[in-house]
């Protein structure tokens, strides 16, 4: 039993150690192998953890067997184990994709740095997901912030460095807010462990109700900056659109989510559902989620650059997650988690498709993709399936989150919110459909145009195809997934 409970830590350590070993590897090719081997090992361990959680339920792990008050504790429940293994799955596929594309996008001597950053980033993300100690969470968040800036800036172009600086500044402000929140909580509860804080708060929160409100506000805005909550999203389009394709896929699909999940942890495990619902913050999160859903999509309509368009679409999709959190019900949070998974798989595939389009045509703007569906049919078909999930065609995960969110709105007697959900999915259709339609039907545009190369290599398409397949399966097994994750949030 001891070994199995320590697997989460081993997972994180494998990734950290592999990252620190990489500087000693000479050839770029070997670095790629080291990176993906470490990721794969972690992924296998994560599957073991999921199976263990399925059989024996959630478990705790105390690092170094120190008493929980002093030591760092990890908590692995169904949600954590699921997020962990699915995120690793996506990261591995993105890493596989990057093997074939990263060489043309960044300088050769930066490749080593890129993979070091990827492994550190993955380790810190797992840390944020697992941790049951908010200060430990803060440390991992900082590592994640720096490494994600790292994978943006490896490209070293002018707007790229600008965007990375913007990202760094914004996310440092976010970290500052989170740290202040932690300081507040520590000052009136005397604990850093989430469970202990929860008990302490339940005992005597009436004495520091206002302070608690400020703390939640600090956490919400701090984590909101990092996960691109609506008015705090300004760094995202620049950072995601200028980064190399693999980085954009990672950032958009994976890196936004752990912070939103950490917010769920803070809200619902540290403070508790009943208490959170007494504060107006929850309504503010809901409103901001709605705004994000609408304005993210509206802004995406006016984008010419495909990567910026997909980046704005991410803001809208994060809006759904905050919408789910903001409903203030356990099931709403469960749908938010489900949407995280669904969006992670879909958005990484979309970014990788767009990367292939840019690589093959040499253009970044959508106008140049007319008729491209005939040149690269498989890429476009995969893009179409991903877009269908975003728009909400039945069976795909996007539709299922929308359905459950709407049903939950009816249960909570807030019918008007459904209009926001449906309006947002219509707006998604408005900007995704022209790309698909022009891609398949604008053959005239292809005349007199020379593209770099017509053929897309199979090894670049395989990771995307695997992600789309995973997306379909996530839709098909949505019931099982929700049954697995929702009891814990109750």
């Amino acid at each position, binding site marked *: 039993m001891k070994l199995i409970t320590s697997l989460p830590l081993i997972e994180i350590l494998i990734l950290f150690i592999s990252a620190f070993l990489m500087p000693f590897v000479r050839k770029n090719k070997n670095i790629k192998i080291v990176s993906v081997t470490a990721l794969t090992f972690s992924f296998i361990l994560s599957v073991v953890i999921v199976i263990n959680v399925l059989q024996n339920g959630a478990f705790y792990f105390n690092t170094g067997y120190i008493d929980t008050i002093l030591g760092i504790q990890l908590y692995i429940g169904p949600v954590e184990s699921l997020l962990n293994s699915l995120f690793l799955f996506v990261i591995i596929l993105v890493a596989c994709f990057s093997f074939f594309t990263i060489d043309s996008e960044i300088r050769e001597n930066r490749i080593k740095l890129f993979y070091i950053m990827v492994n550190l980033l993955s380790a810190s993300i797992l840390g944020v997901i697992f941790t049951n100690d908010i200060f430990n969470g803060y440390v991992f968040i900082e590592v994640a912030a720096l490494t994600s800036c790292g994978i943006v800036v490896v490209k070293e172009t002018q707007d790229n460095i600008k965007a990375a600086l913007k990202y760094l500044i914004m996310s440092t402000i976010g970290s500052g807010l989170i740290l202040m929140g932690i300081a507040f909580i520590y000052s009136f509860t005397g604990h850093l462990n989430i469970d202990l804080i929860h008990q302490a708060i339940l005992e005597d929160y009436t004495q520091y109700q206002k302070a608690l409100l400020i703390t939640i506000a600090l956490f919400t805005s701090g984590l909101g900056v990092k996960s691109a909550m609506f008015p705090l999203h300004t760094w995202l389009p620049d950072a995601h659109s200028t980064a190399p394709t693999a980085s954009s896929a990672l950032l958009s699909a994976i890196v936004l989510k752990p912070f939103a999940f950490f917010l769920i942890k803070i809200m619902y495990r540290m403070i508790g559902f009943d208490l959170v619902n007494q504060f107006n913050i929850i309504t503010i999160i809901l409103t901001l989620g709605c705004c994000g859903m609408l304005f993210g999509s509206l802004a995406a309509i006016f984008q010419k650059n495909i990567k910026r368009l997909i980046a704005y679409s991410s803001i809208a999709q994060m809006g759904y997650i905050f919408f789910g959190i903001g409903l203030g019900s356990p099931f709403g949070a469960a749908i938010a988690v489900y949407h995280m998974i669904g969006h992670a798989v879909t958005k990484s595939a979309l970014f990788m498709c767009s990367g292939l389009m840019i690589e093959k045509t040499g253009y970044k703007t959508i106008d140049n993709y007319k008729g491209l569906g005939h040149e690269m049919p498989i890429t476009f078909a995969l893009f179409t399936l991903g877009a269908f999930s975003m728009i909400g*065609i*039945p*069976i795909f995960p996007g539709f*299922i989150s929308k*359905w459950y969110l*709407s*049903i939950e*709105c*009816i*249960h909570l007697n807030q*019918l008007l919110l*459904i*209009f926001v959900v*449906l*309006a947002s*999915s*219509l707006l998604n*259709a*408005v900007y995704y*459909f*022209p790309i698909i*339609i022009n891609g*398949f*039907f604008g053959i*005239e545009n292809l005349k007199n145009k020379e593209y770099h190369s017509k053929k897309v290599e199979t090894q670049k398409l395989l990771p995307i195809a695997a992600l789309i397949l995973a997306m379909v399966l996530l*839709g*098909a*097994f*949505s*019931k099982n997934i929700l049954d697995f994750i929702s009891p814990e949030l109750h």
Partner: protein
Amino acid sequence: MQYLLLAPILFPFILSIVLLFNKWEEKIRNRWVLCGIIINFLLLIHNVFILKENRIHVLKLNEFIDIYIKMDTAGIVFCFLVSFLWILTSFYSIGYMHDERKQTRFFIFFTATLGVTNGIALSGNLITLYLFYELLTLFTFPLVIHAGNETALKAGYKYLIYSFGGAALSLFGMFMIFSKTQSLDFIPGGIIQPVFTKELSYYFMAYVLTFCGFGVKAGLVPFHSWLPSAMVAPTPVSALLHAVAVVKSGIFSLIRMSYFIFGPTVIMLIKGNDFALVFILITILTGSFLAIHQKNLKKRLAYSTISQLGYIMLGLVVFNPDSFAGGMLHMIFHAFIKITLFFCVGAIMHITGKTEIQEIQGLGKQLPILMWCFSLSAISLVGIPPTNGFVSKWFLAIGSLQTGSFVIPIVLLLSALLTAGYLLPIITTAFFKPIPAGESVYTEPSPFMLIPIIILTGIVLLTGLFPNPIINILDTIAISVI
């Protein structure tokens, strides 16, 4: 053998995939299309007589995603209508598309749309219907933008936005129904029972949302403007969009929603029909008035469709057996009439290149068979015996008189006059105006186009003389749902 139930839906898809991957010559491809669509019709007949009222759960993922195919009488009637008209349309399309570009793409989506429409007909619950309803938009869109020019694309986007908007509204209604009933299966007489007094406004909102949502495709008036715009499509597509595939799918979804989800009693309880009636009467009149002002033949027919769809919906919200039979009859008969009219207009365009009404002066002498078919169908649409349009309008009139209100019969009468007002001038222009000087000589269209038109005109007359077999079938449906 139970899986053969899926054949009318899956077979056209397989056919379109076969077309996608084979680069055949025109003749061989046409043969494949014709054989495929006829075989599909035979499969349907087999299903109707051998499998009878059978059902199959294709895919049950969770409590709401449940792809469920069921054959019931209403579905069979619609499916039969679609599959039969598709055969004639494919003959016509082969003649019409002969000189056009991108023919293979046209036939790929043409056959796939048949599968989707059959899917709508045979859906066993609202979520399956919704899935096919969305797919219908996606598969008909390439047909609408077939010309590929700026106007076609613009019309196509308009069509997409309207259709998705409508589908979103009906999805909203579905959420509301599902959260109360936990089921979306179609059961004759409705699944919502009992209704408590405090829930009345809730259900009223759900009804309004689904009615307006599905009404978008059924050409309900404030949401109708995609329909005339979509006229940029090739004529066989316009004919299909108007006669069977799209607008009738909207109507059929309304039938499913009103009689198999809500049920007449609930709708009358929440006074949903009063609300719907206002929209429908406006639809009938607006469609007719706008049709009079159109100079373009296809546009005039498009507005006429809007008005006639109003008749069908009228029959569906009055809730007595006569009205219901009248509405269903008009759904079937209007399909035959409108497809003939469109085929004739398309043939005129194809032969002479003329699209405006004043240009067709004296064409009756040059193309007698074509113009006679047009005239007979037009007379039928006005509702003059012994054509089938008279039969359906008779039932509608009887049904509406039973309500005791005089508004509906007056609107029907006024609209019949307007129908005559916008269709008869076309006939008089063609037959009684002299042929302009210097006009070139035209000959009748190729048999591929002419024979379907003649067959359809024959059906229009025959069903007018002997409507009883169809009425008997519709009466059994009416008894089960009301």
